[in-house]
Structure formats: structure tokens, C-alpha cells
């Protein structure tokens, strides 16, 4: 797993590549905590190059979504495909976390 954050104005794009799973979540946790604490208005999580996610990875992103939302901001996920898309669909999280993508696919 590798990741990269790009800040612009009041928003931030977080790109996560490779595998976001029980092994790699701890490596990104500090970055997620900082984003969540920042009171940032808009977080876009780009998963276009994510190969694999597991329930730990989903949990970490849902937690980010809730915490940013609690401070008045918004998190959305884009680029979902293959295995990560299958998991998000199963849990009906695509509608909540990736509404733009969900509309585009409909």
C-alpha cells in the first residue's frame, strides 16, 4: 500500500494504491486521524489504483467519513472498481461514500 495526500484550498485528495487491509491500515491510520481532526471541508479518497480492500480498510474509511462529517465536512470515494467495488456494493456503502460514482453508473 502506498498513499499520497494533495491539499488544495479547503479540500484534500487522498490517493490510496495497492492493498488497504488489516496489514496496511495501521500504516495509514496516522494520516487518517490527522485528516479527521483537521476540520477539513472536503476529502476525496481516490481508490482508482486500489487492488484489494478488506473489512479493516472499509472500517477505516467509514470512520474517516463519520469523523469528517461530525466536524461539518464531507468525504467521498471515487474510482472504485473490481474487488473494492464489489465490497462497497455488498455493504451498500457505494451509495453513501461514492454517490457521484453511483449516479454515473446508474
Amino acid at each position, binding site marked *: 500500500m502506498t498513499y499520497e495526500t494533495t491539499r488544495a484550498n479547503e479540500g484534500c485528495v487522498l490517493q490510496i494504491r495497492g492493498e488497504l487491509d*488489516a496489514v496496511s491500515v495501521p500504516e495509514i491510520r496516522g494520516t487518517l486521524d490527522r485528516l479527521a481532526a483537521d476540520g477539513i471541508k472536503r476529502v476525496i479518497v481516490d481508490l482508482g489504483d486500489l487492488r484489494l480492500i478488506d*473489512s479493516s480498510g472499509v472500517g477505516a474509511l467509514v470512520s474517516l467519513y463519520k469523523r469528517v462529517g461530525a466536524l461539518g465536512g464531507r468525504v467521498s470515494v471515487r474510482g472504485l472498481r*473490481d474487488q473494492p467495488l464489489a465490497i462497497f456494493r455488498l455493504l451498500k456503502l457505494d451509495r453513501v461514500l461514492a454517490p457521484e460514482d453511483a449516479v454515473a453508473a446508474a
Partner: protein
Amino acid sequence: MGQVIKLEVVGELEHRDIALRTVSAACRLAYARQAHIPEARETLAYVMSAVGEAFNNIAVHGYRGGPAGMVEICIAVGPSRLAVELRDYGLSFDPRSVPMPDELPESGMGVFIISSMMDEVEYRPGHPNVLRLVKRLGVAGGSSHLGSGLEAKGERTEGEGDDLRNDSSK
């Protein structure tokens, strides 16, 4: 049932990647024999998801509070189905007692993902505990949820948790 591939690794998270890559290569082998089937990507996604959660649970829950034991993974590649059996020597559990995930879940998704992504799931507690996962390959054989993009069979409102039959007869 065709050819069997066996893998043994220590039940620690750092071995998750080895387990998944072996299963993934086996899954691709299954489809190399019937390369015309367009569902290969979807099936791979489902099987990886389920086996990944099962491995995590053995490492995190099964072997909690002690040194990790082994996980034995048997993969049987048949012409119409892929069966993956995971055996561990850790704590047992009752899958029927696991509640459905929340609407915005931060944990508690693993068993639901396993049940929903596979066609057959069977858990036999014991020494070893045996979790048997079966995925039908291709269109025939009632896998009607395949072939329509990446929609998984499970819907949260249907309670597939019951697929995980707790059959204690060995």
C-alpha cells in the same frame, strides 16, 4: 473435483498476502481452463474477499491471546467449482451468533462478507476448525448473481449470515 493445491502458513496477518496470492493464482488457473467465461474477474474478487476475511479472523480472533498456530488452506480446482478449505487450531466460534453489520460499519463485516460472496459456506468447529467455502464457476449451475457486473449475491436485508451453518458433526 480435479486438482488440489495445499498451502500451510502461520496464522499471522503478515502471511495474509502469501495466502491470498496463492488462492488468486489457483483461481486464475481455474479460469485458464475455460477462458471464455467472462465472470473470471468477478469470481476472483469474491473469492479474494471471502478468503481474506477468513484469514484475518483466524489470525485476529482464532489465535488471539496465544502464539499463532498454522493455517492450512486446501484449494480444489474443479471444472465447475472452486472450493477453498481453511483449517486452524485456534479458538472456535459460533457464526450464527454474529449479528449483521451496521449501516455504517467500522467492524463486524467479515462473516457477512464471507457468507455473501460465496455460494456455499460451512463451518465445523473442532481441532482443527474447518471453514469450507465454495464458489461455482461460470454461468451454469445457478450462479445467477454472476454475469451482471459486480453485484454481489448478498443484500444486507436478506440475512445470508444463515449460510454459515454451524454443523458440529465431524
